[in-house]
């Protein structure tokens, strides 16, 4: 598909993804909109352009793996998986409800979810594990992992970063949703991360910085990661917490506060 056409298609999917996230969260009455909305284009590009996967066959052995390490963005992952066809879109309205498959944070038993998540800082290590197995068995699948930026404060991220470069895991791509905000405020106030790119370079990773909403940049970034040899790649995607909803943007409050159900129509009207 022509890039221009593809961008139009992905933009429409991104718009629909935001709508599904907000509807599911409003219905649930709790959950995390800010960090779900910030990373929409990252996952839309991955699932609808980059990754080799088959919603009809979620356990296909050679599928590319995706780990959501920032597990609180579960509404984002679920909205993507539902649109891809892993489960019915209507099921999104059961998010966080008793008896639902759609747990507040990802868990096994949801088609398309590769691992439980929710405790920050541990997804990159899982990705190192699957990447090692792909190398060991000479299998073609790649592993992708989305981390939060606040999550970079967890020590285990850097244990995994060392291991990935030791084992030359060029089949591994990490993505950081660099939206600058964590639960208690700005990352640079709570626990400064900068210079973040320099830190990853110092750990011998291939570092790519992109605008997290520029789809051609994102596509190029993922392609460059795939063609890079002997080193893992991290894509630092500059994003906006709460992206797309004016009063949620840049707001630590909407890290973990859903939209009110009776205001949902107004909120969704912002998506155009």
């Amino acid at each position: 598909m022509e890039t221009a056409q593809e961008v139009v298609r992905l933009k429409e999917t991104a718009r629909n993804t935001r709508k599904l996230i907000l509807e599911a969260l409003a219905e649930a009455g709790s959950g995390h909109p800010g960090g779900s909305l910030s990373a929409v284009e990252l996952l839309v590009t991955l699932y609808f352009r980059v990754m080799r996967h088959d919603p009809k066959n979620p356990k296909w052995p050679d599928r590319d793996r995706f780990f959501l390490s920032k597990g609180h963005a579960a509404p984002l992952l679920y909205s993507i998986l539902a649109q891809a066809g892993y489960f019915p879109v209507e099921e999104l309205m059961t998010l966080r409800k008793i008896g639902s498959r759609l747990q507040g944070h990802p868990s096994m038993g949801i088609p398309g979810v590769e691992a439980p998540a929710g405790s920050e800082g541990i997804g990159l290590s899982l990705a190192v594990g699957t990447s090692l197995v792909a190398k060991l068995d000479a299998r073609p699948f790649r592993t992708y992992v989305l981390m939060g930026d606040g999550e970079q404060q967890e020590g285990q991220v850097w244990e995994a970063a060392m291991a990935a470069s030791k084992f030359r895991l060029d089949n591994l791509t990490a993505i950081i949703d660099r939206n600058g905000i964590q639960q208690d405020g700005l990352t640079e106030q709570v626990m400064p991360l900068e210079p973040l790119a320099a830190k990853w370079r110092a750990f011998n990773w291939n570092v790519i910085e992109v605008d997290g909403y520029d789809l051609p940049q994102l596509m190029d970034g993922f392609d460059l990661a795939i063609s890079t040899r002997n080193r893992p790649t991290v894509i630092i995607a500059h994003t906006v917490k709460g992206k797309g909803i004016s009063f949620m943007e840049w707001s630590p409050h909407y890290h973990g506060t859903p939209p009110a159900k009776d205001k949902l129509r107004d909120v969704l009207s912002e998506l155009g």
Partner: protein
Amino acid sequence: MLSKTAAMRDAYGDALLELGAENKDVVVVGADTTGSLKSGVFATKFPERFFNVGIAEQNLVSIAAGMALAGKIAYAGTYAIFVPGKSVDQIRNNIAYPNLDVKIVCSHGGISVGPDGASHQQVEDIAIMRAVPKMKVIVPSDAVSTKASIKAIATIPGPFYVRLTRSSTPVVYDAGFQYELGRANVLREGGDVAIVACGIMVPEALKAAESLSSKGVSASVVDLHTIKPIDSETLVKLARKCGRVVTAEEHNIMGGMGSAVAEVLGERYPVPMRRVGVMDTFGESGEAGELLRKYGLTAANIEQASLGLKGQ
């Protein structure tokens, strides 16, 4: 029996070598203690399936989980003080919750670690690990049962924690030991008191039973090698038969094997009990034998507890 000694860690290395040859999906992950743990011998035969992640115990656990997610049976471990000590969250969320084929095998459990002192003497691991849903917990009593257990768990799906001992220990079993999940081994039948032990306290329990017999007290001795899932049937049967139970473990008396036994009997067949173990305290430096005596983890302590229950 008990006259020979052998090292559980050597048995672990032997078992890994056999597993490596039998099953190409077995991988080994270590954290800078692979020489000590003897998991490193796996690398001599199967270097491509051996991964040393350095001093990074959280990463150790989560990488093993990732490998299991991609279809491997991962044996991961280091010293018990560090796993589970530094990595409970990873064990819980990466391994147990998704019920993955990760077999955590750690050495240096208990205070018999010796001169390294309290910072290296893990006396809480049984309590921690058995509280995690889906986790199965094994504390072998000697090298022979260690090897058999390590091999057996490769064929039983899901996560395990196996706790080994640093020093060489008396051999309890002949080579024919067969591991059966959740089935305690009754090593000696007696009618006055049932002594339930695990790990290095099993040989001590056997010695205690011998000494008690010379005093006219007949003791059953049980090797409760698998603390979870626990063999409730055997425990209830023995409680009914003996009317008194003494537990013995190289672990804090809070939350460990003795607690697990008390939970079963408290609900199903309450009888008077005594728990021999570390009395909710930290250890210290010293030789293993000195520490076991000082902290009340010997045959004499088991005998005393048994006699106390008998009112003698």
